[in-house]
């Protein structure tokens, strides 16, 4: 029908492309992605690690589903692990033992799965820290930051539901703690617990239910979120670190094909290789040591997987009694007395709740304080955003104090100190640590900025000591090259923006608060060196900064 001449491919690639494109299309996609530019930096790798460990989780998890029996039917173990032979247990635990001892490579796959899960949450967390400290969450990427936060929560949910499946003593006690926390929820807590366990704890239903969540619902949502996350990365194009030739309007890096794809694709195999090495050599979660779940015994010194640690630690830090005052409140109502377990509810919900709330809203908080509604594609070096770096460090410290508290008993036994003292100290640190962390981190960032200024103004120290004719010793300083100089002066100079009156000439309360926060964050700042400043300094010295330092009093190091 067509009047134009038919396109006749000449090469093999051409023939395949023609076949695909004339049926389903796809050339446009190749045009769009084939040579798309991706900036390269080692810190962009964490997101990749997260993605690849998730792929490993899907691969190893699928293998495990073929052998795992997610039921709590009572069976008597008859596998090849002698110490547990003849012992009654659930089918879930028995099949976990079979995977470990009677399926060749099953132990390896279990360990790949568990180690990948641990690395997955770790990679997601470190990736988020990278994004936070470099300001990559700023417009237009705020929503992708939120999707990332949702992924972190989902990663923890996937981890915890999986941790409970083997139905060994350790995971059973973990579930019992969850049951205790759920029961503390006012009004509906008892019913959520009863519905989750299909009656009273532990019942015979919960493993199957967690299994459905663990292998279907949670991973499906994660997969969906990962899709949205990556789609937005493509829409926004990747951020890049500032540097010569790298601006807010361009992307400098390697094309997807071949270099970036090769590096990123190769990196998957490297991550797989490293996980395989860890899984081959280091035992994780030896469920056969713990025995089947029994509500009576418990092993001392048990730890949750690391990513649940901060909640467990918060539970440990909270005092239940304060002198004779109990945080378990009895509230009289007309229909009777109800119990509000603040000693459980408060630590389980409040720290994590505040942390995630600040995390999710931070992009908007920051742009509100700085009145910055522009698009940002250039990252901040953490030192060039001292206020944000300080806030990030404060958050990290409060998280880490809770996390350390989850090992308070092990800290006490390893360092031979009193368990009670460890807890008291961590309680103090939980309050003071973030404040000190904010101050110290911000000061360090400002000091590093000052150091950058010094280097720009007085040049690089060469290590060459010269003796002047009159006998003075001084170190020779050398001018920076234009590229290095650009790196040190090209950053965003955030100033205090005092509260502004609105159109009616009135300063609203929220604007006053914003002004106060702006002052708090930006009162101390280090401005980047300007060309005129540098020129003035050179003129004053009468010679370039490449000349001998020590001739002017202000350049002597104090």
């Amino acid at each position, binding site marked *: 029908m067509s009047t134009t001449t038919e396109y006749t491919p000449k090469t093999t690639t051409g023939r395949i492309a023609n076949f695909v494109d004339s049926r389903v299309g796809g050339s446009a996609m190749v045009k769009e992605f084939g040579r798309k530019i991706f900036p390269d930096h080692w810190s962009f790798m964490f997101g990749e690690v997260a993605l690849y460990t998730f792929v490993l989780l899907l691969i190893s998890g699928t293998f495990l589903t073929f052998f795992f029996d997610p039921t709590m039917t009572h069976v008597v173990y008859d596998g090849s692990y002698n110490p547990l032979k003849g012992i009654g247990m659930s089918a879930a635990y028995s099949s976990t033992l079979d995977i470990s001892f009677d399926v060749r490579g099953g132990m390896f796959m279990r360990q790949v799965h568990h180690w990948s899960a641990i690395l997955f949450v770790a990679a997601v967390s470190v990736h988020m820290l990278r994004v936070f400290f470099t300001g990559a969450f700023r417009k237009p990427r705020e929503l992708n930051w939120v999707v990332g936060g949702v992924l972190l929560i989902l990663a923890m949910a996937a981890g915890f539901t999986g941790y409970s499946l083997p139905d060994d003593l350790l995971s059973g006690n973990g579930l019992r703690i969850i049951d205790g926390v759920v029961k503390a929820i006012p009004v509906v807590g008892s019913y959520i617990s009863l519905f989750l366990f299909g009656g009273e704890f532990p019942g015979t239903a919960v493993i199957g239910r967690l299994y459905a969540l663990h292998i279907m619902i949670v991973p499906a949502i994660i997969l969906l979120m990962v899709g949205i996350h990556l789609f937005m990365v493509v829409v926004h194009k990747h951020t890049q670190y500032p540097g010569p030739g790298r601006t807010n309007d361009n992307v400098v890096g390697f094309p997807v094909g071949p270099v970036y794809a090769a590096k990123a694709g190769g990196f998957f195999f490297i991550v797989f290789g490293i996980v395989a090495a860890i899984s081959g050599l280091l035992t994780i979660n030896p469920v056969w040591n713990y025995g089947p779940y029994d509500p009576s015994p418990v092993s001392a010194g048990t730890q949750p997987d690391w990513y649940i640690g901060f909640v467990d630690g918060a539970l440990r830090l909270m005092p239940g009694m304060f002198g004779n005052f109990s945080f378990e409140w009895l509230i009289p109502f007309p229909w009777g007395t109800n119990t509000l377990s603040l000693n459980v509810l408060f630590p389980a919900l409040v720290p994590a709740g505040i942390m995630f709330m600040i995390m999710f809203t931070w992009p908007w908080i920051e742009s509100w304080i700085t009145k910055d509604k522009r698009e940002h594609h250039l990252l901040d070096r953490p030192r060039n955003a001292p206020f944000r770096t300080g806030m990030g460090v404060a958050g990290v410290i409060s998280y880490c104090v809770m996390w350390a508290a989850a090992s308070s008993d092990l800290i006490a036994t390893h360092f031979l100190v009193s368990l009670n003292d460890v807890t008291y100290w961590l309680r103090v640190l939980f309050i003071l640590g973030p404040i000190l962390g904010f101050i110290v981190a911000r000061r360090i960032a400002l000091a590093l900025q000052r150091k950058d200024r010094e280097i720009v103004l007085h040049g690089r120290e060469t290590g060459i000591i010269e003796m002047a004719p009159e006998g003075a010793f001084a170190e020779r300083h050398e001018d920076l090259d234009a590229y290095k100089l650009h790196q040190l002066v*090209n950053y965003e100079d955030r100033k205090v923006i005092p509260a502004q009156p609105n159109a009616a000439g009135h300063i609203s309360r929220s604007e006053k608060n914003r002004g106060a926060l702006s002052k708090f964050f930006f009162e101390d700042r280090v401005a980047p060196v300007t060309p005129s400043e540098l020129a003035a300094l050179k003129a004053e010295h009468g010679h370039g900064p490449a000349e001998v330092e020590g001739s002017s009093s202000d350049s002597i190091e104090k």
Partner: protein
Amino acid sequence: MGDHSHGSPDDSGTVAKAGTGTLDKFQDPGLPPHRKRLADTDPRAEKRAERQVALLFIISIIGTLSFFIAYFVLGRPDNLSDIRVQNAMLGLGTTFAMLGIGIGIVHWAKTLMPDHEISEMRHPIRPEADRLDAVEIIDQVIEETGIKRRPLIRNTLIGAIALAPIPAIFMFRDLDRTGKTAGEMVEQFRHTMWDKDVRLTRDPSGTPIKASDVQIGSVFHVIPEGLDEAENVLNEKAKAVVLLMRLDPKKMDISEGREDWHYEGIVAYSKICTHVGCPVALYEQQTHHLLCPCHQSTFDLTQECKVIFGPAGRALPQLPIKVDADGFLVAQSDFHEPVGPSYWERG
């Protein structure tokens, strides 16, 4: 290189700069000049890199083959140490198989593929014209439905949509299929297997305990007699486990109404922590403290298991006991309060 410099973040985009007049900014020198790699200039280095990549791929092949050796030659090990060896070999085989490919590809990309950095312009995510068009289309769609002009339709639709998902929530009612009413469900938390004259027996053997067996300093992990015949053993055990200890009665600080709950200093307390339900498994006989290994709640046995440290908010419930005609320890009744973690309806 000049092509690559397009100003700095402060003068990009459409946002006008607040008037500082002329920009006192350093010129962007553009991308640094490209430095050639050894393999770009020296054919021998190029050849060497090529051989290195191939060698890495061969290492991968060897890794995969050694996986098979571990899988088949070691067969089906039947003891833990052989399984560990097989696991390590399977792991290392996979490690080499994967790292060979991965490092090989990355090495190939870094030494032999072009390493020129390319600069590409960013485009606005969407032109504003599109946005206006979109708003107009949406407005028109809403207008054509007439939903704004017909509040009756709108309100009934909102009502219907709000109501429709509620059955989906109710369908989960049968997650609990015990057939109990809401009140009965929660009432279960109040009762355990303990009752008048139920013997205290050892966990897990189920042998009864004579009062004379319980010495000062010793601790017994106790279950009610007949636990094994219970309908759901674990559910009953999760509530009924008890710790049995003996104290010097002079050291005990007994509150009113509990004077006869012990037998010559032998006391029984619930083993389930009042914090979040872990078994309070550690007894320090010197200090008479009970410690929960999960969150370190500490209870003082001499003060009727009052909380003296940690996150628990309430003392451990005490089980009233006595001795039967044969000298065995038995319960006087069930616990007088619900055991384990608190819940809303506990009161």
